[in-house]
């Protein structure tokens, strides 16, 4: 049984209320930080813990915090990125819905470390009911004196507010999020300057994922060094994984970084194997934008070592034979899945969510979707595979924000590992979908 630090209390009734949360050790990190620690010490503990951003990029959180510019007389902000929109990722929703105070506690402790008097939780529009849960929790925290002026009698004052977005994937990109938070159109900014220098309203800002901020709580409670003992190498601590797809037990799992992928897929404690006794075909390991990998490469690296659920192991071999841990959106696909159709779904999503600022992404994502539609219609040619490859290579790395890459990588990986499926459709001029859902659909139609 792996250790759980974030959602270990999720089974307790009414854990979303302040009293129950407090009775189970809640807000201890705020007490510890505010009463016996200096802000820099908290940052130091986070640095020692080796915590890496849980939103997808995996950038060391302590380092991000230390980059924050601290000019005199200018406010600093902490913004929590709860715009969790990556297809296949739903861990933050689970955390906020079940234990909203875990996030709020993390916000207070982190803001203390950063010296932020105001913090915002930017939550996606589709999670409006979660925003209500958070707002209720914040109201409780204010009433109990965990938020507001002079928390715990110290001279640290802090306000936290929830802002609901309009439901755009692009607002999960940190600068687009800041634009949206400022009340503007959610378009990514051109960097530099980075938010650590000029973020919200031009002030130094740290934008962190929900899970990252929640992880600050156990780090302060147990100490950074203790936290760093969990995990392997530079992948320390625990990680929430949203498991979905053709597995027996889809859901949110908290894992210790370092378990093998095989254990995660087949272990009874986690996904419990592929359902209906089918074989595993492919896995998207970290949300829809990371490269898809076939079974042989997701279970073992190209060198033949077992692949672990860590940042390093999953990206072993680069994009040729590896992938990324990303946001932890783990999508497993069984042998009946059509990779082409899956890719079409992903590409349609990125086409829909492109903000339209820069040309490669605006025009390229739509083009990719149209070509993939040709495959589903059975009208594609073999040359269309090369065209797809060429288009994705011309989007990747040429855009303002990472959405271009997010749109390009799945296309590249699908062609890299499953080119035969594309060619088969192109040669036969026919697309047959053998997936479980499609058969169900057909049955329903009869």
């Amino acid at each position, binding site marked *: 049984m792996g250790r759980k630090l974030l959602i270990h209390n999720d089974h307790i009734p009414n854990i979303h209320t302040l009293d129950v949360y407090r009775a189970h050790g809640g807000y201890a990190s705020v007490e510890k930080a505010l009463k016996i620690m200096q802000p820099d010490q908290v940052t130091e503990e986070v640095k020692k813990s080796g915590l890496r951003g849980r939103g997808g990029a995996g950038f060391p959180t302590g380092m991000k915090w230390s980059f924050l510019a601290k000019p005199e007389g200018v406010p600093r902000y902490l913004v929590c990125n709860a715009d969790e929109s990556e297809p296949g990722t739903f861990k933050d929703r689970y955390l906020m819905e079940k234990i909203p105070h875990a996030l709020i506690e993390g916000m207070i402790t982190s803001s203390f470390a950063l010296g932020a008097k105001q913090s915002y939780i930017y939550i996606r529009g589709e999670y409006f009911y979660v925003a209500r849960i958070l707002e209720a929790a914040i109201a409780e925290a204010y009433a109990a004196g965990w938020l507001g002026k002079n928390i715990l009698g110290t001279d640290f004052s802090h306000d936290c507010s929830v802002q609901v977005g309009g439901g*755009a994937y*692009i607002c999960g990109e940190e600068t687009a999020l800041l634009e949206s938070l400022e009340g503007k*159109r959610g378009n990514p900014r*051109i960097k530099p300057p980075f938010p650590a220098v000029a973020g919200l309203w031009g002030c130094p800002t740290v934008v962190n994922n929900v899970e990252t901020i929640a992880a600050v709580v156990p780090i302060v409670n147990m100490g950074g060094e203790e936290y760093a003992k969990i995990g392997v190498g530079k992948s320390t601590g625990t990680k929430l994984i949203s498991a979905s797809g053709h597995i027996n037990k889809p859901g949110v799992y908290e894992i210790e970084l370092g378990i093998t992928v095989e254990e995660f897929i087949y272990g009874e404690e986690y996904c419990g194997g592929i359902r209906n006794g089918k074989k595993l075909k492919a896995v998207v390991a970290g949300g829809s934008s990371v490269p898809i990998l076939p079974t042989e490469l997701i279970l073992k690296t190209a060198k033949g070592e077992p692949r672990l659920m860590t940042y390093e192991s999953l990206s072993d071999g680069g994009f040729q034979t590896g992938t990324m841990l990303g946001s932890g959106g783990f999508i497993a696909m069984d042998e009946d899945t059509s990779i082409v159709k899956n890719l079409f779904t992903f590409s349609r999503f990125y*086409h*829909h*969510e*492109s*903000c*339209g*600022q*820069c*040309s*490669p992404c*605006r*025009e*390229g*994502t*739509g*083009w990719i979707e*149209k070509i993939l539609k040709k495959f589903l219609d059975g009208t594609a040619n073999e040359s269309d595979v090369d*065209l797809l490859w*060429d288009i994705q*290579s*011309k989007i990747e*790395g*040429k*855009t*303002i924000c990472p959405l271009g890459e997010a749109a390009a990588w799945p296309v590249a990986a699908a062609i890299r590992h499953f080119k035969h499926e594309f060619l088969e459709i192109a040669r036969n001029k026919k697309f047959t979908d053998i997936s479980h859902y499609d058969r169900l659909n057909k049955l329903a139609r009869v």
Partner: protein
Amino acid sequence: MKVTIDGITIDVPKGTTILQAARMIGPEVAPPTMCYYSKLKTSGGYCRTCIVKVTQGSAANPTPMPKPVASCRTEVMDGMVVENTINKDVLEARKGVVEFLLVNHPLDCPVCDQAGECSLQDLGYEHGAATSRYEFPRREFERIDIGKYVQLHMNRCIMCFRCVKVADQLTEKRVHGVMHRGDAAEISTYIENVIENDFSGNVIDVCPVGALTDKTFRFKSRVWFTKPVDASCDCKKCSGKVRLWMKGEDVLRVTARKDQWGEAEEFICNECRFDKKKTSDWKIEGPTKVDRHSVISQNHYNHLNELKVQVLKQQKALGFMDINKRP
């Protein structure tokens, strides 16, 4: 600060962007631009045609930048080394960007008033492919009327955001902007509002394509059949320094004067642009110098002095005797 672009080193002040530095060196190394406009703050970064490869970040930190960068929005560092036209990857990537800009462009140049002075035409000619790989129907927008002076053809728009920034930075109140998202994004007014202010005509000058054109000039003439003449007048609202596009004695169109990068030197007011269409309204300064590569120079005078200098240079190079020093 020293920066090297395509092997040519230049000393520039702090805060200069790569593009500005390249323009200082000259048009041979300057990347093409579609959305950047030096007179408009925060413009640039969107079209990605000006991307370059930074092979050395700075003298202090020589690591190359991992991705190609938009030269219009990247400031130079001391000792930076940039590759533009000598880098195959950059040229290939730029070709890709041009293709992306063209996939949904209607290519209706034969009926477009911008033809002949269109940045997208120039860009496609210099960096694009001869054929298109795009086989789907092109995007179309519903037509909207934005007033009596400016014609909006949204189908031709490449989303450079210049017209939005002009309205923001030149006028009191902007009534047009970007609606919708992704490839459905369009320049529009909410809801079918009319753009009315003294400087609204400048959106025509900054538009790199034929998306915003002059209604008073619509279908009157192809630009290369008109003669550009620099003229001025005493205007209370603007500098009054304009360019007249004449056919015979008729003033067909008035625009701002544009520099060698296609940017307006000074923005002009609507009164100068749309109302003063008589030669007597203007003090003619003389014929405009037309860049010889431009289609507008076809069937036109070239700048005689410059031509003379060029001829003399060629003759000297060939060992001709100087005509002025003949015994």
